[in-house]
């Protein structure tokens, strides 16, 4: 197993997610059974006690995410995993986590919706739910892996971003990627960067809505911290009608993400400076673009792509650069058009934006279908 650059393993996406979470320092997990996210809970239930962590199966998703937020306020890195319907149930509490600036990681293993839809089949229908699922003004952070290796890497990154910016981070995975079994290289632990939240010094009293990310005390440390999802000042004291206090705290939770977009956004790009056709893709769908690009190049069509590893905040800059060169941009998605509207928003004036959509039954978009779109017109 071992080799000098780390450990090689052959794991399912769910297992990689759990191992990465543990390496990142996750020591609390609460979840509720739902397909196709159960493997994450099951691995966590087995693995967490071995490292001294607590696993709880709660009575529903509302309880699960609530317990996760409570754990985080005890200074413990915490995570939950679910799928579309459970993710919907969690939304109110996710908003509470944004407002209370609580670091936590939520894995959404997307399945076919709306409603119960097709519980075990792959889809990408939760893109906008990940961005706008709860009420009010906030900036969501959402990462989107397309391989087992990347599930591992982005899970660690999700915890790091959550801790660094004191915010919930959503891993927007999908059924197929999470169920893939692939080779994985786990780097040596000393080469993995682990970020921990900033702690307050003794006597500090300002824990919320600061210009830069506020230090976060833990329960039981003697800070008498008042945590509330209602509009609050920097001490956590509620102001339920004051417009100035509200603007201050909400602008702060938005600005800490907005001002750090370049740090948060990660994409894989190819040929974006020299292409006639562009592709913007993410998640399992992006696995089909490589072959399509090769085939198109064999036919003399230069294709570039931006693969979104960060979905939210939307990677505007690389998509704009792609649009400066490409005449048209194809956006394949396993929904009826969600991220395509973001692409149109940032690139619609400079390039033709072409959706390529497929839903139902977990049928993936194939390289041939993307190739046909590339060669069209």
């Amino acid at each position, binding site marked *: 197993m071992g080799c000098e650059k780390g450990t090689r393993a052959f794991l399912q996406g769910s297992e990689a997610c759990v191992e990465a979470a543990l390496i990142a320092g996750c020591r609390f997990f609460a979840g509720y059974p739902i397909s196709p996210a159960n493997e994450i809970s099951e691995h966590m239930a087995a693995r967490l*006690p071995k490292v001294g962590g607590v696993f709880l199966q709660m009575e529903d998703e*509302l309880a699960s995410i609530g317990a996760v937020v409570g754990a985080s306020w005890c200074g413990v890195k915490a995570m939950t995993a679910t799928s579309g319907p459970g993710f919907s149930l969690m939304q109110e509490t996710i908003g509470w986590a944004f407002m209370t600036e609580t670091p936590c990681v939520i894995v959404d293993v997307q399945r076919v919706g709306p409603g119960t839809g097709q519980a075990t089949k792959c889809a990408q229908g939760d893109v906008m739910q990940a961005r706008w699922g709860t009420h009010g003004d906030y900036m969501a952070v959402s990462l989107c892996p397309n391989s087992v290796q990347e599930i591992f890497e982005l899970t660690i990154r999700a915890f790091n971003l959550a801790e660094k910016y004191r915010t919930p981070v959503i891993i927007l995975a999908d059924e197929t990627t999470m169920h893939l079994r692939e080779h994985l290289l786990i780097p040596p632990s000393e080469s993995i960067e682990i970020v921990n939240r900033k702690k307050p010094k003794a006597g500090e009293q300002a824990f919320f809505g600061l210009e830069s990310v506020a230090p976060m005390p833990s*329960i*039981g440390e003697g800070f008498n911290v008042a945590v509330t*999802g209602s509009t609050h000042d920097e001490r*956590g*004291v*509620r102001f339920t009608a004051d417009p100035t206090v509200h603007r201050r705290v909400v602008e702060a939770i938005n600005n800490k993400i907005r001002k750090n977009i370049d740090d948060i956004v990660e994409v894989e790009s190819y040929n974006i400076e020299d292409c006639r056709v562009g592709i913007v893709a993410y998640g399992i769908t992006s696995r089909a673009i490589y072959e399509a690009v090769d085939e198109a190049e064999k036919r003399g069509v230069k294709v570039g792509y931006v693969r979104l590893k960060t979905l939210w905040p939307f990677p505007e800059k690389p998509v704009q650069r792609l649009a400066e060169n490409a005449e048209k941009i194809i956006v394949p998605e396993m929904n009826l058009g969600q991220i395509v509207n973001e692409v149109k928003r940032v690139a619609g004036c400079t390039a033709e934006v072409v959706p390529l959509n497929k839903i139902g039954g977990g049928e993936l978009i194939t390289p041939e279908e993307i190739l046909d779109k590339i060669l069209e017109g």
Partner: protein
Amino acid sequence: MREGFSPSKYLRPGLRFPFCPGCGLYVLSDTFLRAVYELGYDDFRKFCFVSGIGCSSWIPSPYYLADSVHTLHGRSIPVATSIKLLRPGLHVVVFGGDGDIVGIGMGHFIHAARRNTDILVIMGNNMIYGMTGGQVAPTTPLKTRTTTTPYGSFEHPLDAARLAAVAGANYSARWTTAHPKELKECFKKALQMDGFRFIEVVAQCPTAYGRRAGFKDIGEMLKWFRENAVPVTEAEKMGEEELEGKIVVGEFVQRRRLTLVESVYAVLKEAAQKYA
């Protein structure tokens, strides 16, 4: 010599409770603080408070000089659950109203009792949704006029204290704000126990309940509590019809069942030995 009881040393300086004049929650909070004092605690260093949404939930947050987590409507118990498991040395106390704990939060309430989660849940039961202006609650007595039952409530009210006992709590009791002495002893007893402990405090809401239900003043509401209170032991001998409109008070259960903290830490110990 220890200083005498003063509520102010447990309260965050510069803030005042927002409750209406005559609200039962003043008595509830004061009685709780006295119990804490009499148990020998001069501050809240050994406590964490968790609450939901509603008037009762505002008691600890942010007014108690303590760590307090003010959660969403109905969601205090799951948040308190993880806090207790990760900070087992603290008293984790949940404050909530009837709407919060046994309306929207009912599922969590029953499951916490079933798990025997080591938290103390104090439910201020004013039999109404007070903060939102007086809508009918799951605890509103039959035929009561509220803003959403202008012809009188047509649903049976819930017996939360009995439900907690049946669901598996180590301790469950009910008193009213007309019984502060008994209530204080309950708080003291519950704070010295493990497992799920539930104390229901029937508390007057003169603004949203009393006015519409036809009470002239707070004294009349307290008189209603006193005159209709029936001890558990007596209630057991009474028929359902006789008990209609009565407030059964006292202890519904007191026992020593395996608790969630004990179970979870047993698992952790086993795993540590096995995989060390």
